């Protein structure tokens, strides 16, 4: 089938998400998570109407696409993700836009610092403990100083 001419195509919106929880999945894994989550909440008919897709990902940032008017539904569907690879995680919606470029300008890639406190992964005031009972602990700098 030939693609629709530009005037007949539906308008799209892009939503920037940040993955919280320390786990960084691949773009394919993110795509499957988005598809599963949208289908679980709105069903196949809703997903077909929404046209969700992952168009870009870098580190813990993801840009997802949907049909215009379905941004809130996409955010709601991705809010339901609670775990990635068995660890608590979440998709935090950061911004919505009509172009990928304007969203990419909002991305601030942080380089986690693992040297200030050995055994801890620091990012600004936030600190994730990597080695307590083989599970993550989520702290702040003030918690470390207190400990």
């Amino acid at each position, binding site marked *: 089938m030939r693609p629709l001419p530009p005037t007949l195509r539906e308008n799209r919106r892009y939503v920037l998400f940040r993955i*919280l*929880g320390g786990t960084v999945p691949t773009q394919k894994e993110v795509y499957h998570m988005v598809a599963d989550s949208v289908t*679980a*909440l709105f069903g196949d008919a809703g997903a077909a109407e929404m046209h969700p897709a992952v168009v870009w990902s870098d580190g813990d940032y993801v840009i997802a696409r949907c049909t215009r008017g379905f941004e*809130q*539904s996409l*955010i*709601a569907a991705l*809010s*339901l993700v*609670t775990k990635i690879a068995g660890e*608590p*995680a*979440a998709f*935090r*919606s950061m911004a919505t836009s009509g172009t990928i470029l304007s969203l990419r300008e909002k991305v601030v890639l942080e380089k986690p610092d693992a040297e200030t406190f050995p055994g801890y992964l620091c990012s600004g*005031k*936030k600190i994730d403990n990597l080695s307590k009972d083989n*599970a*993550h*602990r*989520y*702290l*702040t700098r*003030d*918690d470390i100083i207190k400990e």
Partner: protein
Amino acid sequence: MITDACVYANETSRTTLRRFALTAASCGFSKIVACNPAENIAEYAGVTILKGKVISKQTGKAFFDAVKKTPADTVIFVQVGENSFNRTAITTKGVHLLTGIPDIPKGGFDHIVAKMAAQHNTGVVLDLAKILDAKCRRTALSQYADMLAFHRKYHFPLVIASGAAEYPGQKNIQEILALTSLFGMTRAEVFAALNALDGILYPKKTVEIVEEEK
């Protein structure tokens, strides 16, 4: 003040209370209620932290004792149960909020309980963690839609809580708007619910001193 009415920063949580407060600040909240907190912190990162206590369904005397023994500065949540228990909970002085709406038994919350909740200024908590849980999502959405219908008619306070046990469970305002739209809550209702806790904790008095005479 935009408030997240319930986070569980207790000893089993892997997130510290400070981290909860830091995340709440980044999500646009200025106040959180920490239920059964492991630490005693009043403020962090510009977020006021209130202490909360969840009282589960108990028989008469044990319930009154639990309410009486709770310190005055603590927000008291009562886990809903049978209709008669809910009526008792609402009329008990010191009870601020009813929680656990998705687990409510059939007929547990009717128009009379709703009217009583409005008269006694007792809030009802809409716990978003129940929507995130796939097992009870359908029940939660349907119960919250019913609760919203009661709220629109009887005007008792509705309060929104993330019910997060770890920091990824906390939601920002956009996500709350998206999740609450699933059961038909409007933007104005969401913001009223996010600001409702202050009205429950510090209700308007019939006579108030506006300006003191010098």
